[in-house]
């Protein structure tokens, strides 16, 4: 009797420790990775407010303390040494990086980024949902084939298209124009796929009822189907906006020749060349913060839709 109890207790004991240890290991693992993913951003924000000399200091200070807005140069114009503006973990915020980046055409870049993001998103939402609905609901010869062709385009590596696309755009006179960027990105296979999957998941009865009432397909689509597709439309909007906001490569290829049409990522990337050999890291990091901030705000407001959207696409894949 005693033996049995002892063995029983031992196993529970072992199980108990394992049950205690696993969560601790899991949480440690999670926290380490969460830190790895977030620390670079924290350091980016911190360093964008530092004087250049302090930017590459090790260990990195990241707690801002007054006085704020210190001058990075002495009265004779020489740069202050790193120690003058930083403590062990603290630093006095300076605005040198932001002042330097503000000398460039930031409002223009910002405006262009907004134009591209809005234009592309608007067209994509319209074209992708129309195409998705067509593939999901309407029967016609070649429906399946079209779907697989469109899906197949997702497999084409983007780089292959860069140069031929440049030449085509040049031929039709859309190179270095707003329309060039917006039209070239106005439909995407992923969005069509997303919309098709969604339309297939909603019941057909309501549309059939509307049809019996004599409504045209176009009216059914805009007045009955689209309002039901709000979750998918939101996901699509969020993805298109984010993708176009951050788009660097297409914008570089299509409007690279006209500085007036640059967007934020392109301007930021070309910023490096503007200072010759010197790497003004605090300036670049300030530019990075300015580029990321609007999207970060959008992300935090619409977080649920970002995550739902990506989950949605993944599950159906």
């Amino acid at each position, binding site marked *: 009797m005693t033996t049995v109890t002892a063995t029983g207790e031992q196993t529970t004991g072992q199980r108990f420790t394992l049950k205690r240890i696993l969560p601790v290991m899991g949480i440690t693992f999670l926290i380490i990775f969460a830190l790895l993913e977030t620390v670079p951003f924290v350091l980016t924000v911190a360093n964008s407010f530092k004087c250049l000399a302090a930017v590459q200091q090790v260990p990195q200070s990241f707690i801002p303390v007054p006085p704020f807005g210190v001058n990075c140069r002495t009265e004779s114009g020489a740069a202050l040494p790193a120690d003058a503006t930083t403590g062990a973990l603290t630093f006095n915020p300076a605005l040198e990086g932001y002042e330097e980046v503000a000398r460039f055409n930031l409002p223009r870049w910002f405006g262009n980024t907004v134009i591209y993001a809005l234009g592309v998103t608007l067209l994509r939402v319209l074209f992708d949902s129309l195409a998705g609905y*067509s593939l999901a609901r309407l*029967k016609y010869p070649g429906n399946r084939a079209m779907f697989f062709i469109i899906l197949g385009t997702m497999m084409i590596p983007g780089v292959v298209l860069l140069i031929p696309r440049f030449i085509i755009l040049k031929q039709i006179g859309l190179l270095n124009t707003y329309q060039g960027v917006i039209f070239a990105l106005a439909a995407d296979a992923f969005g069509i796929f997303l919309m098709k999957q969604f339309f297939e998941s909603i019941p057909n009865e309501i549309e059939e009822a509307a049809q019996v009432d004599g409504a045209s397909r176009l009216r059914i689509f805009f007045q009955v189907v689209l309002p039901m597709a709000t979750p998918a439309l939101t996901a699509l909007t969020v993805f298109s906006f984010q993708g176009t906001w951050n788009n660097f490569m297409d914008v570089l290829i299509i409007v690279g020749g006209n500085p007036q049409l640059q967007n934020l990522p392109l301007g930021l990337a070309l910023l490096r060349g503007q200072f010759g050999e010197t790497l003004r890291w605090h300036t670049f990091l300030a530019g990075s913060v300015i580029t990321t901030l609007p999207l970060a705000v959008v992300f935090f407001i619409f977080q649920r839709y970002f995550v739902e959207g990506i989950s949605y696409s993944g599950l159906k*894949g």
Partner: protein
Amino acid sequence: MAAITATAGKSLAQRKREEALTGYAFLAPALLIFLVFLFLPIFFAIYISFTDWNGITPLNQPNAYNFIGLENYNKLLFQQGISQRDFYTALKNTVYFVLGVVPTQTILALLLAVVVNQKWLRAKGAFRTAFYFPSITSSVVISLIFMWMFTRGGIVNDSNGLIHNFLGLFGITRNTVGDWASTRVASLTLWDWISGPSVTMFTIMVLNTWTTIGTMMVIFLAALQNIPAHVYEAASVDGATGFQALRRITIPLLRPTTFFVVTLGQNDPDDCLHRLRQRVQEFGDGAGGGDGDCVVRHHLRVLAHPAPHHQRTGRYLGRSL
């Protein structure tokens, strides 16, 4: 009432024809975009890859190009020379890249998702946000941040590379290794040469994993939440341990998702192309000059010219096929 009669009045064939027409009309705008900006460029690229067009002469001029059949492909794949060497270097590096990155990010993302999915975990949303945030950040921004951290004299890297640091574990450093290390070849010391491209490559792999892991974790997490709880309950009743459940239930049930994530991962080297480009520039000749060049170098050249050189187009297609 009138509407019903109208609908009923149409014959079945008529209705079918109308539906087909609507279908094509709805598909038309997206298809037009694809046609002009996707299919046309692809066919153009394939066509040009069979010619000796130099990429500069306007195409409407006579003698702008000649048909040379498979010559470009031959040069790229079989003939010894610079084109061949570059192509196979790029191929080798792409393979390394995929082999290094895809398993790492898939496994890490899955493990993270499994932990985040645990019932006892608090602040799930905060973790999800932390992991997903890099995915919404512009790749230009990410490359700048990483360049800043990993650059010579940056906060993560000193002038030593991966190999240097590894050798350092055994007490082998620049000062103990002997004078040969200071010999300059092409304006770099031999010591710098051996740190070489592997550092670049490794950094790019880390960068890539770092950026995509969040997206993949969220995908896995969504799939995990779709596995019904009673499956695990049944397993638990049968005496399965947590690890057994992971191996025998979770992983098999996640197979479609894993497939999706792996496919997504393989396409990624192209997405981060310009990150790589900037990184090579950053490391300068020190890292970008050896034979271990990553995918980058060859893209870099192509990018340097806005129009395709016939070999380059060929090379492109060689890769994409």
